[in-house]
């Protein structure tokens, strides 16, 4: 199916000087797609050439459109010698192939050279005409939408979630081809960049084909990774979740958002009997029938959750985890899922009703020796490896009585010829609503309503982080369903302690819950969450080949076990009982293994309160020793108490009831056995259980444990005003402002001391991470109160004795004053405060004052919600509380916006005054030249690793951004050393991402991530090289206040639209 790609080269600016003699450049441009190349004329002697070329037209197959990038090369014309390349721009035209994404690429894009970095910018226009947009292609999959976001994208609803899609493509790495010895570094880098662009395109196309086969139209949670295997090749692999998405039309969502937002909370208030039954389906449409049916299914499976932490080395099997447990014959959903090869989902947050019960984390690793890939077209070995791992995950999930795995991800760590493949996810039981082949019995009612439900769901999700969540804690239903265990109470797959759910008291829940997903929006929590990290270093002997692989696989279980122990201890130390977003990374180097587990700890109201930590000495012989122990015990108790205060983990009220509950006090504690020392090599001796034991006891009979406790207590507390988490949004904080700051930080540590013990290494590694966090808190101190969200640590061992930690996260400020509990009251207060401020600073106090002075401010709100078509007028009274609070917060947002604009406006006026002000003595002269920068200021592009922007609504997804860059230097010292080099490179990558998003017409990147940052240096040769791979979703967002201005507050609409430039 052919298509026509059109490109026009408009102009260049800030070009480098290529001709030393004239200090100018004779630039021209080559535009290449596939094997066709066009050239512009030479624009002589200018650093700001205006080519204004004709439209270059490429008539190509749409398979090529998907695979190939448009390649733009800027060159300097030279009469006597070869033309010098200035740099290149690769444009991924995939976003143009989908009718719902971008329609044109137009804007200034940085010209990039792998040796010199960004060298000026070029203004281009790119369009695509697809001749036949029918669904009958074989080779191509144009029109399938891709999202990095791991939830249903904000302006879509899921009609169907089809399931797991995966693909990998393999090629030889140009860097390791023989020809590399004779070509320049630049040529090698460019070959590599181009190849990876091609492979990514091909991969995406192939995944798209699979999606079409399944009947879907989109991939959500698309995760693409590179394995730079070195000699053996280059693997690009991707996983994702195929879905059928339906766009929610922007107009209706804009106008109806508010009334529907307020309805759920309202409902809850009105009908308390609905609260315990609805499973997070907070919607006006939730009928009693629905809740009954969901209860029915719950009743069938005796629920309560726990964790399973099945860490496997190579060849290690699930062993006791995969006990003789027969999967419960649960609803038909299961059979539907079982028909699939892998019932995996890369999503981490879900529409309500999708997730029924959570089992625990499932995890599989395997150590492989890399061998040459003989036939790149049939990458059988790599496929087989992953298949193995996925099967294992599937088994683990089954062992937990679960039929699906969510929050699923895969990763690798490569050192020389050894490769660790890892996969992890959360075993769950899913509701059938979004499943294919939905069953037609009890759940039928549910499955017939998905559209209605998902509409509500999208709203709720879409507005998280804004005012919508106001009053959440007050009115939300218990939201404990997902905590109930999915497995059989009598046949627990691993020793765990079950209690009756603390919310509904009906079903069993485990004592702790570990998951890889985000906290479900409907979940009931107490207090706030926090980042919890377990860090571990293990030395390993240098070895080759199989011996090495065996040594590593022997070490892995210990590593996982200790990470787990640490996580558990730290969780208890914070008085919390559940982990979300758990991500365990194991990195392999020549002489050590690094393990880093990050998660966000929370206190789930449904789960029992965690017991304390008790220290026991084995041989309490002398008094000083006793003293020492009691000192430590005291310290620990103090820390727990302090943490409870910091995170506002107040024991819930029904704790008193617990005393009367059948669970005896001592059994609330669990015992922790330390692993034997490293010499122990018998894996089966490991006791992964905690539940059997009576108390959670740390025995400090060996030095290791002392170290452990020490490590436990040395975690630096977050400074006041800061919170941190690695999930999308901090549980327990709702009133975000729109101020965000995304950042990437990289640190490399050299371990000079060759003979470090495990403890020494641990300490260093732990300090490295802690210091990094401290640095963030310091740097972002101006944003307080704020939360570092989606803290994503990536560790690597680039060389012997080097540890690299890369972090990408976003800092988001929130309003402290606006408390949620009494949204209305404080809302009123803030409103008044805002107005007084308003009087002082702003000119349009009139309209707001008028509103305030109206005797009943609620009446105006009511009127407005009626205007916006709400059918809730009968119950409008209670609606008003939340919607009024909503409005208050949005007013404040608006005021802030206005204030900002006015401030800017006044700056503008003064500057124009400056310009116009006649010189003394009335000597006026006309300006003979316009300011050279006028009108060309750069549009602001926000970046965030989250799938949402606080205080804003995403109105359009423009396509996926997936970019790969290589930068190399042979003048490391001159570029400011390794730090200077990398600093520039990361800034350049940001700049290129922003420019491409702006060219697509977007103003933000969401779900941004830096998936690869491979840094290599050779200071002796004054050289360094770095590879970075980033991805995200380009979007257009609109400030919520602006939306409201048009839909809810028509009177201020004019002000808002005239100020609409804010987003740019």
């Amino acid at each position: 199916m052919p298509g026509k790609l059109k490109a026009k080269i408009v102009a260049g600016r800030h070009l480098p000087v290529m001709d030393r003699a004239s200090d100018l450049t004779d630039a021209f441009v080559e535009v290449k797609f596939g094997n066709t190349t066009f050239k512009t004329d030479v624009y002589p002697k200018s650093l700001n050439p205006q080519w204004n070329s004709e439209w270059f037209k490429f008539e190509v197959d749409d398979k090529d459109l998907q695979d190939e990038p448009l390649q733009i090369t800027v060159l300097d014309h030279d009469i006597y010698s070869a033309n010098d390349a200035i740099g290149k721009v690769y444009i991924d035209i995939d976003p143009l192939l989908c009718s719902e994404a971008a329609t044109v690429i137009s804007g200034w894009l940085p010209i990039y050279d792998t040796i010199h970095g960004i060298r000026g910018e070029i203004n281009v226009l790119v369009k695509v005409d697809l001749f036949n947009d029918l669904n009958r292609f074989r080779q191509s999959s144009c029109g399938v939408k891709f999202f990095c976001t791991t939830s249903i994208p904000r302006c879509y609803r899921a009609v169907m979630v089809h399931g797991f899609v995966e693909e990998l493509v393999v090629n030889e790495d140009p860097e390791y081809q023989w020809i590399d010895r004779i070509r320049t570094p630049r040529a090698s880098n460019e070959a590599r960049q181009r190849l990876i662009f091609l492979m990514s395109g091909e991969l995406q196309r192939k995944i798209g084909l699979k999606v079409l086969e399944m009947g879907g139209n989109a991939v959500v949670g698309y995760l693409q990774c590179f394995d730079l295997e070195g000699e053996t090749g280059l693997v690009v692999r991707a996983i994702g979740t195929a879905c059928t998405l339906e766009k929610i039309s922007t107009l209706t969502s804009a106008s109806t958002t508010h009334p529907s937002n307020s309805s759920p909370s309202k409902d809850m208030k009105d009908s308390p009997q609905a609260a315990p039954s609805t499973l997070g389906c907070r919607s006006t449409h939730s009928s009693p029938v629905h809740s009954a049916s969901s209860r029915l299914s719950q009743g069938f499976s005796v629920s309560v959750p726990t964790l399973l932490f099945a860490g496997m080395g190579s060849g290690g099997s699930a062993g006791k985890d995969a006990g003789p447990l027969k999967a419960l014959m649960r609803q038909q959903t299961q059979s539907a899922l079982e028909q699939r090869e892998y019932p995996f989902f890369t999503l981490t947050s879900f529409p309500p009703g999708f997730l029924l019960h959570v089992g625990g984390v499932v995890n599989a690793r395997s150590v492989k020796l890399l061998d040459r890939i003989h036939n790149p077209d049939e990458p059988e070995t790599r496929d087989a490896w992953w298949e193995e791992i996925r099967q294992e995950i599937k088994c683990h999930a089954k062992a937990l009585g679960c039929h699906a795995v969510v929050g699923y991800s895969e990763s690798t760590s490569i050192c020389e010829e050894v490769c660790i493949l890892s996969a992890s996810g959360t075993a769950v039981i899913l509701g059938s609503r979004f499943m294919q082949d939905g069953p037609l019995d009890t759940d039928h009612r549910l499955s017939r309503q998905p559209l209605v439900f998902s509409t509500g769901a999208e709203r709720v999700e879409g507005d998280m982080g804004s005012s919508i969540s106001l009053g959440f804690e007050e009115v939300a239903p218990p939201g404990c369903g997902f905590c109930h265990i999915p497995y059989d109470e009598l046949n627990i797959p691993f020793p765990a302690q079950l209690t009756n759910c603390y919310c509904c008291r009906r079903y069993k829940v485990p004592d702790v819950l570990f998951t890889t997903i985000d906290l479900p929006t409907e979940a009931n929590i107490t207090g706030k969450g926090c980042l919890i990290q377990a860090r571990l270093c293990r030395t390993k002997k240098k070895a080759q080949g199989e011996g090495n692989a065996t040594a590593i696989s022997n070490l892995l279980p210990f590593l996982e076990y200790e990470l787990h122990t640490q996580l558990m201890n730290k969780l208890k130390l914070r008085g919390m009982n559940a982990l979300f977003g758990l991500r365990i990374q194991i990195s392999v180097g020549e002489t050590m293994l690094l393990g880093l587990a990050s998660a966000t700890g929370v206190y789930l109201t449904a789960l029992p309160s965690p017991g304390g930590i008790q220290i026991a000495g084995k041989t309490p012989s002398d008094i000083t020793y006793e003293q020492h122990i009691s000192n430590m015990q005291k310290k620990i108790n103090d820390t727990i108490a302090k943490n409870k205060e910091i995170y506002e983990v107040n024991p819930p009220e029904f704790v008193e009831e617990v005393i009367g509950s059948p669970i005896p006090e001592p059994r609330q504690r669990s015992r922790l056995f330390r692993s034997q020392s490293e010499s122990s090599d018998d894996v089966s001796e490991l006791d992964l259980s905690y539940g059997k034991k009576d108390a959670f006891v740390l025995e400090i009979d060996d030095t290791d444990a002392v170290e452990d406790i020490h490590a436990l207590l040395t975690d630096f507390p977050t400074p006041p005003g800061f919170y941190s988490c690695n999930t999308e949004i901090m549980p327990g904080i709702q009133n975000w402002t729109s101020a965000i700051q995304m950042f990437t930080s990289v640190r490399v540590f050299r371990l000079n001391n060759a003979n470090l013990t495990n403890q020494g290494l641990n300490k260093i590694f732990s300090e490295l991470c802690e210091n990094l966090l401290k640095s963030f808190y310091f740097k972002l101190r101006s944003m307080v109160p704020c939360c570092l969200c989606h803290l994503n640590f990536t560790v690597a061992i680039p060389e012997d004795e080097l540890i690299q930690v890369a972090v990408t996260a976003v800092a988001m400020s929130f309003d402290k004053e606006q408390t949620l509990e009494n949204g209305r009251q404080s809302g009123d207060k803030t409103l008044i405060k805002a107005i007084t401020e308003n009087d002082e600073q702003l000119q349009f106090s009139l309209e707001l004052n008028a509103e305030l002075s109206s005797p009943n401010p609620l009446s105006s709100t009511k009127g407005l919600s009626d205007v916006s078509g709400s059918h809730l007028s009968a119950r409008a009274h209670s609606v008003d509380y939340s919607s009024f609070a909503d409005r208050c917060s949005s007013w404040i947002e608006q005021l802030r916006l206005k204030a900002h604009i006015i401030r800017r406006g006044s700056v503008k006026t003064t500057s124009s005054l400056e310009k116009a002000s006649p010189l003394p003595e009335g000597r006026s002269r006309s300006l003979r030249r316009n300011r050279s920068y006028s009108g060309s200021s750069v549009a602001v592009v926000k970046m965030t690793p989250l799938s949402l922007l606080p205080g804003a609504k995403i109105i359009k997804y423009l396509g996926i951004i997936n970019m790969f860059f290589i930068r190399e230097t042979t003048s490391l010292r001159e570029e400011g050393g390794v730090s200077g080099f990398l600093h520039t490179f990361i800034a350049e990558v940001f700049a290129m991402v922003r420019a491409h998003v702006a060219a697509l017409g977007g103003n933000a990147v969401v779900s941004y991530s830096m998936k690869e940052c491979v840094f290599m240096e050779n200071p002796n040769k004054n050289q360094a090289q770095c590879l970075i791979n980033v991805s995200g979703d380009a979007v257009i967002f609109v400030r919520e206040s602006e939306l409201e201005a048009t839909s809810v507050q028509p009177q201020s609409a004019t002000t808002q639209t005239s100020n609409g430039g804010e987003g740019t």
Partner: protein
Amino acid sequence: MSVELDVFVGNTTIMDKEVFQLWLNGYTVSDAVKVRIEGGIMEECEANAEVLLSDTMDQYRTFQMCERLLHHPAKLSNQLLFQIPPDRQAMLIERYYAFDDAFVREVLGKKLSKGTKKDLDDVSAKTGIMLKSCRRQFDNFKRVFKVVEELKGPLVENIQQHFLLPDQLGRDYAAIVFFASNRFETGKKKLQYLTFQDFAFCAGQLINHWTVGAVDNMMDDMDVDLDKEFLQDLKDLKILITDKDLLDQHKSLVCTALRGKTNVFNEMEANFKNLSRSLVNIAAKLINAKDVRDFFIDLVEKFIEPCRSDRWTSIDVNLYLTHYTNSAHILDTFKHHGVWTRYMGVIKSCILRIYH
């Protein structure tokens, strides 16, 4: 164990005003860390020296990367590498182009050449401003000078346009450029009591009244050069001192007007011929570039010092100059009213400014 590499890059470039100032002042990273520690930031933010060092290094690197953009401020707003909010951009530019009065006094009127740059270590030692900072300030002067030198049109506006400087700073730079291009002597001991702002004020007066652009804004000429024609015409004023009758007449007119209005009338009367001769001689000599350089020293030596030794107050000076200027117009045989007004207007405001 050592940190080999340490970077932090924000989507919106984070720049700390305080660190930026330290960087501008020429502090090394370790000195800057010391200053910050002494400022008590560690207690405030629960940081430690390590964190502070890492942050300072990062900021310094960012500033270094930004510096080349700051050399062409217009580029800062349309570059893509750093996402900096407009108010931050303005702050960066303003602070980068800000200078120390002590420093500028040292180089004001000097040729902005390599030779002067070489002597900056002396300037640094004398003023206590770090050499790095001196170099930046000097380079700023030179850069502005180079760009504006070639441009036509009003000097202040050209500077403001090209360097996006706020009003006052733009005027100051205009003064610096003007002084550098006319090489006014400002370093003599007798001129030491004058501040940069005194000179800047005078420069403003000269630019606005004595340059080519001052009379004809259609002329595509520069503000940097004094109006040659005017300087030529100034020679005609000599008649005021060469013509004995005119001189006496002028004196009696001024004295009549001044009588009883000041405590130093006698001194004024006694000195009238001397002072008048000085002022007219300064005017007549301005046609020679060398004498232009000595303009300020002449004013101080020939006019201000005599007045000062006679203990005139600045009110007295004002009074005297007003009548001195106005009376000339009443003289029958004096024809050069235009030139006289143009000359004395500037002289009067300059003298009043520097008489302290």
